[in-house]
């Protein structure tokens, strides 16, 4: 594929950014949830 570096690069940047954002959110949630009771988790 011509210009594969640019094309694959754009997909890697996109998926990588989403993945990093998701992982950091879930990690932060897990850390904060340790001291929070289920009563405060209004979505449960």
């Amino acid at each position, binding site marked *: 594929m011509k*210009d594969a570096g640019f094309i*694959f690069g754009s997909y890697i940047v996109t998926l990588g950014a989403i993945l990093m954002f998701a992982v950091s959110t879930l990690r932060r949630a897990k850390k904060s949830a340790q001291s*929070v009771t289920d009563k405060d988790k209004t*979505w449960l």
Partner: protein
Amino acid sequence: MSQVSQETSPTGTRATQAIGVLALAVMAWVVASGLLLTPQDVVQGESVRIMYVHVPSAWIAYLAFVFTAVASAGWLISKKHSMGFDRFAGASAEVGVMFMAITLITGSLWGRLTWGEFWQWDPRLTTTAFLFVTYIGYLAVRRLEGSVEQRARRSAVVALLAVLEIPLVHFSVVLWRSLHQGATVLNPNGDVKMDDLMLFTLFSGVVGFTLVFIWLVLHRQRTMLLVDVADNQGLDLAIVARRAEGPAN
């Protein structure tokens, strides 16, 4: 919404799990179709494949910023000033900034292949950069000192002003002479000039990115609630600990 294993994700529910699985499936299709199945463009050749991630990420960034403004207006208008509105606004802005960053990076890669330049100060690129910087400013405002109410009030005002930039960004290619091409799908005459599989893949991208946006915002705003509760509990625990010290002395 029923509970999923709190071990794996304290902010997850069956609904977010379903949205997540669906988002993964649609995104897998977009990647496969965008990279392998869709044809080359008659003029741009292979570089057109960047469009399937660049355009949806721009649209979802707009959507995120509009959602931030709506939630901010909700906070300002509602009598109870529910902090849920504020958390949704903040979460949506964070996700929007991420999608805007993706738009700028993928756009500059695409620009290098088509225009021959990574960046030019043309109307579309300049207004997009300005929008990106504005929302980084919005996120900075949210981290200023003060109570959660002060945070909500300040950021809601900024969000309602910042969202006015979006029409300027979108119509910049019509209002001024731009190097960036005009809108293909959202053009004023409604005549979409794109091959069927290309168009279907582009719309799949919009659907996939929207699902990702919903999943991220739900998790992010719940995480924000957990952080707020944990912060308050930290204060409560400190007070209890201080009181407990009294009789011991």
